[in-house]
């Protein structure tokens, strides 16, 4: 009797200003083949692979001329279907969708549900795998909405996080609004920003108005979440009821992307930038910082990365990990470089350059 060997394929999905690209490799991740540009010419703010069905890639696509939409590919980018009814605010809302920022497959027990975050501050749900989208009116018409003020990135809803241990619990992150949590599957929303600073406001600890840049959940402990904020890096260990700043040990608390290790609890990566008024690598070193203890200590990871006079930056979706062991880490720059590490951040290599500005990096690990 012969047993069939499983072949692993690693895909890195890049959303860029001029379309999308997919880099493919095997488990060794030494050589890469690039497909693209896909969705040519349209800015792609985010792409994500749906692990639930093992085939669909969703893309948040924003045409300068023709507006925002969500597109789906079930053949790894060869063909794309457009949403028949893309995310649009209710006609009586007075709001218009400016850009689609993030698309997130829903909880495992709702395999046809997909969620999208847009600017200005909107959450949408599709119950038919992306064909039609309905607004989440509880969030989009939140009683405090008239007091939400956009930051430099606008009022973008960029993070959507589900609790795998509680199908009714979900979180969203909105720039210059903060984190909101729902305990009833999105029927109501409450702010969860306690102890998170808003240095740019007269009241440094308001109920809302904090500028979260990226929000992610620990891979093993669903009560633990991490956020890269405009004003520091934070963790919570009680489902966002209380946050604690964990920026000590970083050259700057400012940054955009965040990536959690796929297997190890309390292990994640950030990319510090100098600050609000100089959005480039802190100390002009293009360094990724890693923690293995939820931000109690940090290690600078720069071997193989531009170590001096490097004025590169990353967008909020610009960093990701794959699911192999040891995990790969990927970071894409605003100037079109993609760096990766196959040893969990210890050493890095440039695997693509001269691409359009990279908006988003995500991965799909397939076992075939």
């Amino acid at each position, binding site marked *: 009797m012969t047993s069939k060997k499983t072949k692993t394929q690693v895909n890195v999905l890049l959303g860029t200003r001029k379309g999308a690209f997919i880099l493919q490799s095997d488990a060794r991740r030494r050589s890469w083949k690039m497909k693209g540009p896909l969705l040519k010419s349209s800015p792609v703010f985010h792409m994500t692979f749906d692990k639930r069905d093992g085939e669909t890639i969703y893309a948040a696509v924003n045409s*300068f001329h*023709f*507006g925002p939409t969500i597109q789906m590919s079930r053949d790894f980018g060869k063909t*794309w279907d*457009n949403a028949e009814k*893309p995310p649009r605010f209710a006609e009586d809302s007075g709001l218009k969708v400016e850009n689609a920022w993030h698309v997130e497959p829903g909880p495992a027990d709702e395999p046809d549900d997909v969620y999208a975050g847009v600017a200005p501050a909107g959450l949408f749900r599709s119950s038919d795998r992306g064909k039609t989208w309905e607004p989440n009116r509880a969030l989009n018409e939140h009683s405090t909405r008239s007091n939400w003020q956009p930051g430099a990135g606008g009022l973008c809803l960029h993070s959507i996080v589900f609790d795998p241990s509680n199908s009714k619990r979900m979180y969203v992150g909105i720039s210059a609004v903060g984190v909101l949590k729902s305990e009833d599957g999105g029927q109501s929303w409450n702010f969860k920003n306690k102890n998170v600073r808003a240095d740019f406001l007269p009241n440094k600890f308001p109920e809302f108005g904090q500028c979260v840049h990226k929000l992610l959940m620990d891979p093993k402990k669903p009560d633990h979440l991490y956020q890269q904020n405009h004003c520091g890096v934070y963790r919570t260990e009680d489902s966002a009821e209380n946050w604690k700043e964990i920026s000590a040990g970083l050259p700057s608390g400012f940054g955009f992307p965040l990536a959690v290790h796929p297997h190890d609890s309390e292990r994640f990566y950030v990319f510090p930038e100098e600050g609000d008024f100089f959005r480039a690598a802190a100390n002009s070193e293009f360094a990724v910082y890693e923690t293995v203890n939820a931000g109690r200590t940090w290690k600078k990871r720069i071997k193989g990365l531009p170590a001096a006079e490097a004025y590169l930056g990353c967008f909020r979706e610009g960093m990701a990990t794959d699911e192999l062991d040891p995990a790969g880490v990927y970071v894409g720059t605003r100037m079109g470089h993609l760096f990766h590490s196959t040893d969990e951040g210890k050493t890095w290599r440039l695997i693509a350059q001269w691409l359009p500005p990279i908006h988003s990096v995500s991965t799909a690990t397939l076992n075939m």
Partner: protein
Amino acid sequence: MSVTVKIPIALRQYAQDKSELEIDAGTVRELLQNMDSLFHGLMAFVVDESGELRRYVNVFVNHEDVRSGEGLMTKLKDGDQVTIVPAVAGG
């Protein structure tokens, strides 16, 4: 009224790669609605959620920009040629 509508290159991927269609419609809005029923989602690329023409999309009936007339309510007659054009922008 049967009119001809020319589809710009960037939108053909959503219209089975067709560059031109023959459609029955009495107004530009009705034309876009009828196109959307053939190619779901197409209208949202031309008209925003408030029902207005997108800022950087122009629609011409023969050689007249509909914005200088009755907008999406511009009436169509048999044989008209409607052209959807992304606005020229940038530097």
